[in-house]
């Protein structure tokens, strides 16, 4: 009963945040609604007893990435007059809804045909940092290392792109 209430609350918040991100005109409002979505998603992870993912979602997405985005928005110091004219945006929205509606109906149909099963809380420290770490470094070591090399490449690329340009080039 409680978990259902919480799930509904977080799900509604997540969807509302996403809708706000698309509909708000001011970038700060958009970014703040995205924060709401991120936090609501963290709540959903916590309901799935994925404790580590919950903390990482809060630290990395809701904490670090979104605060950098907010920081940049503050840095730009946008005023009402700087915002672009979006006269046709309601038409675009309407078009988007028309395109998405059949897919959404299809998805709802699929979800409804799923066999109902009783949800139980997984015990044995499921989702804790130790368990996830053991799985990651025993069963999934190679994929984990490959992903970390990918991240390293992105990091090096960012440094190269942001580095000082040589004069006369």
């Amino acid at each position, binding site marked *: 009963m409680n978990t259902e209430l919480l799930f509904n609350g977080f799900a509604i918040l997540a969807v509302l945040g996403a809708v706000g991100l698309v509909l708000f005109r001011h970038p*700060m409002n958009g970014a*703040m609604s995205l*924060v709401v979505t991120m936090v609501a998603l963290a709540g959903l992870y916590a309901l799935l007893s994925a*404790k*580590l993912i*919950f*903390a*990482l979602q*809060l*630290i990395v997405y*809701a*904490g*670090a990435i979104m*605060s*950098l985005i*907010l*920081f940049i*928005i*503050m*840095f730009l*110091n946008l005023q*009402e007059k700087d915002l672009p004219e979006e006269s046709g945006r309601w038409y675009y929205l309407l078009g988007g809804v028309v395109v998405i509606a059949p897919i959404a109906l299809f998805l709802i149909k699929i979800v409804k045909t799923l066999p109902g099963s009783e949800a139980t809380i997984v015990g044995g420290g499921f989702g*804790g*940092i130790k368990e996830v770490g053991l799985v990651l470094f025993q069963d999934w070591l190679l994929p984990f290392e490959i992903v970390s090399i990918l991240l390293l490449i992105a990091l090096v690329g960012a440094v190269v792109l942001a580095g000082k340009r040589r004069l006369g080039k």
Partner: protein
Amino acid sequence: MSALDILMVVVRVAFSAFIPLCFIAVCVWMERRGAGFFQDRSGPNRANIFGFRAAGLVQNLADAAKLIFKEDVTSGHIKHKFYFVLAPLIVFFTAVVSFAVVPFADTLVLGGKSYLMQGIPLDLGILWFLSFVGFSVYGIILAGWSSTNKYGVLGGLRSAAQVISYEIPMGLAIVSLLVVYGTIHLNEIAQFQGQLLFGFIPMWGAVLQPLGMVIFIVAAFAETNRTPFDLAEGESELVAGFHVEYSAMKFAVFFMGEYVALFVSSAMIVTLFFGGYQVPFLSTATLINNAKPVAFLLMIAVPVAMHYFAGWIRRSNVSHYPRENDPRVFEAEIYIKCFWGLVIFLEVVLLLILFADKGGPAAHIFVMLLQMATFLVKITMMIFVYIWVRWTLPRFRYDQLQRLGWQTLLPLALLNIFVTSAVVVALS
């Protein structure tokens, strides 16, 4: 849930919610008296209630009354009022909530059940703290931005950039700590520090990770926006930084949030590096087994300490010029009587423990109270270090601050991780 379960939930939540709030008053008082001490002056000592000044604590009440009854101004040029009001709340809320996973006593075993002595019995530990530290940046950014004030925006920019960049050395210092402790659970970290190195040195983080401790403490100073890293509110340049447009209780909430953050980061430093709630040299098991001798020693030590404390009060609490029937002497006598009353109460409690069963629930509760007291004493000492640094060191320049973070602390923290990992692998 039995009545005991409910009582324990209430006790734990009350401790982890009210102690940080109570420490706001203690911190503000220590800050002012400390500033006075370091600058060779008295600090606040005039505000009184019927002549009782409580060593300057009454000044806090006067401040609170002032801040509550001041006019709450929201300037007309502020367009995003929602964020303007939300910002101080975020700063305050994240500071209070991040204390929720800090253990203030070892796991309490009562009636065959064990209770984790922290606000939220969650095993996320340090990750919870990191996530809420990250959140407090939102409050600063939103406050600076929604003020629509150049000083506010500049202060917000500085502060946010500082907090974000010092989170990295802090996180890396924590990584090397976790390599040593092998757990993220703060209670297990504190239990680990109850052991003894070579049989006589407490295995504190400060001994095992001296470099990590320096990096973490410097980063914690920067995270709480305290001097020498308080450029965000450099009065001479920015008036007050990100909270320049705030007045009355909105400002007070920022102010209180800052002191709660100070308390929480002291608590984290104590938990990670100074043994947490552990009484030095006495682990929890030793204390529970020897509750009676410890209580007996305390019964002797407390009145002796009180005797010297009373002498100190009597010597310090006098007027600085000769007065007839000095009211301060009378005041001091009242304080001394109050403190002796407290000591008598303590003696009665200790006496009860002397007559209780060996290793029974009374011993467990006694050890819990002892550890809570140790924890609070350690935190108070750490807060004093914060105040000490604030009134001793001048402010950094902004480029120096960023250079220290990125070019000194970050490589040092990385080096620390490698050295620590190598040592841990070699020893295991």
